[in-house]
């Protein structure tokens, strides 16, 4: 299979998976986008779900369904205060309503990242080629 075909195949599969996932989300993704920004989720997860802790492509186990996501938010605690930015804040219902949380969930489920393959990125491929030629 050529690389372009591989990329296309991956994209199609991703689209199917994503569509199914969105169907499972009951929140409002559009509202969730604003909440994702307002609650500064982007701080660690990037504006598109790629950051210090990637969550795009439903890559996080806590995104398996809404209930697990909610449970995760509520159960979070100060697990490692010495390195506080390494752990995610917890979000009790008093600070993040179920509705807002489910909206955020719905938005995160829309986040996908299918970057080009390395061989299709001249800058990265060039760095690799240079190292191999040394």
């Amino acid at each position: 299979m050529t690389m372009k075909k591989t990329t296309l195949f991956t994209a199609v599969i991703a689209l199917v998976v994503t569509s199914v996932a969105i169907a499972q989300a009951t929140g409002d993704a559009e509202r969730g986008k604003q909440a994702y920004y307002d609650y500064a989720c982007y701080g660690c997860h990037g504006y598109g779900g790629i950051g210090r802790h990637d969550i795009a492509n439903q890559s996080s186990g806590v995104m398996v369904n809404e209930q697990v996501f909610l449970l995760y938010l509520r159960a979070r605690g100060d697990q490692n205060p010495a390195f506080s930015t390494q752990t995610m804040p917890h979000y009790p219902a008093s600070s993040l309503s179920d509705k807002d949380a489910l909206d955020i969930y719905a938005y995160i489920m829309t986040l996908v990242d299918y970057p080009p393959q390395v061989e299709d990125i001249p800058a990265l491929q060039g760095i690799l080629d240079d190292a191999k030629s040394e």
Partner: protein
Amino acid sequence: MTKKTEGDKVQISRREFLGTGAAAGAASIISTSAGAEPQNTSARQEAVASVSPPSDEQMAREVGAAIPPTDVQSAVKRPGSDLMVEVLREMAIEYVVSNPGSTFEGLQESIVNYGDKPNVMPEFITALHEESAVDMAHGYARCEGKPICALISGTIGLQHASMAIYQAFLGQSPVIVLIGREDFGARQQHTADDIAGMVRSYSKWDATPETLEETLNTLQEAYRQAMTPPMAPVVVVLDAEIQKQEAGDVQVPRFRPPVIEGVSDADAERIADRLVVAKNPRLNVGRLRTPEGIDRAVELAELVGASVQTRATFGPMSFPQTHALCGPGADENYDYVLGLERPGTHASIQNPSVRAFDDRDLMGIGFGNVRPPVRPQRDTSGEYDIVGDAEASLPQIIEAANKKINTRNRNAMSVRTVKHRKANRDARVAMLEKAVEEKRKGWNGSPISTARVFAELWPLIKDHDWCLASGTIFAGSHHAQLWEHNRPYSYLGMYPAAALGYVLGSSTGAGLAAKARDRIVINIQGDGDFNYAPGSVWTAAHHQLPVLNIMHNNRAYHMELMYLQHLAGVRGRGTERMHIGTTFRDPFIDYASIAKGYGMKSEGPINNPDDLYAALERGVNSVLKGEPYLIDVLTQPR
């Protein structure tokens, strides 16, 4: 005017000293040393204890009632400050960076007017803030391993500069801070009994010379103190009157560079013996002092066929990253590890774990740090087996090793070298194969991924002589994997004091070093840091420094945002107001316009990743022509 203290030791303030016969005191000091007298020494106390009472004229000056006659300067044919410039010139001080003040117009006038080639060696560089001036000197020092001067005016300038002096101190960088002092007239409110005392706890050495002869000697001693390991900033207070006074027959003393000794001959023999006998020796190279030290480290590694660990992706003056011997080597079971300004180590990183080799023979040469351990409970006193200067020790070790190498062990070393070369090359390729998979994540994202900024910049600069001047942890440090750090100044490292307001100035200082060396400077500039003292943009534009500023514009003090966010979460109070005090919104800051206002070519904000490469290319082409450039890139937070 003297004060009796416990133990009947005589103490006297500088102001009192001036008023009680400076000439007698100064003469005593000069006779006891090369003229460089640090504050608060017993010699000074003894000197001032014997001075005579103040004259009426001196008392008038002391209370600020004396105004110097305006025609005095026209009668001065050989101003003292001309001789100061000669001293700086002889020490090859390339620049004096200064935010102008009214306590050193004597020296400033001499720099820009005196000599066959006025305003050359040193050249007067205009900074728009004293913190920027010292940061520039710091950036230069990290590139070149030698000092330039920051010229500061009185107590007010020093207070502005103090943060940058603290950064240089923690950065172990040689910087000469000159402070103008005027004890009468309009500038009287800018003086103090002990100006340098303000920064004494984070400078290595300071002095307040009282005569021209002493001033000249003190400048030379300041250079020696700054350059002697552990290197650090030094402070010299320059009296305004001495700068302007007639030098008469005073001569510039011959400059004696510092002599830095290495290990004893016996230790050099012992180390060389182990390096030659070892079947798998290893060098652990930290930050050496100068580029010459790196050359010697390379020579030693190649001589004995040792694999090498480097700090080149963490800071300046370490072993070339992609040298054939740099890497884990063919066998990580090293039987002798020699640390050079780094301790030897029992551990080897064998991904994904770290393995300890308890039976390793370890040795480390180093001076350690001028600052106390970061964690008080950590005792670093035994960190080095030999407390001394590694760089100065290398020639002795090389000489001793050369004598011990015979045909048999030379062959073994050659075989080892070939194996290391292949293993290190394979290790780098393996590392890169993993790294590029990580770096491509979010490649087409907007705002732009920080990895893409580093990746797309590399092909544009790799064939040029470049220096990455900015600390990059906040921007992902992607260069550590993607770029090749093979020169002493390839990467200048993080903010030594982990404090913002440093990067723009220090990168501009790196530009000063680069200007005459056909080198370009890359500054991945955090937006938070930029806003402390953006005037360095003007300095770069005015002096045409080849600095490419690429904004890592995440529109926030992002680390603080995350800390605040976490705490609010712990307290269960929500994170929807965490932008307050941590972000730059309403309005967003337009860095391209700021740069344009300062006279620097610029563009942005760039938010479309497809526009990035062309912008970087324009920026690199500009700095290759010697014209600084700023690109505002809207980036992912990290």
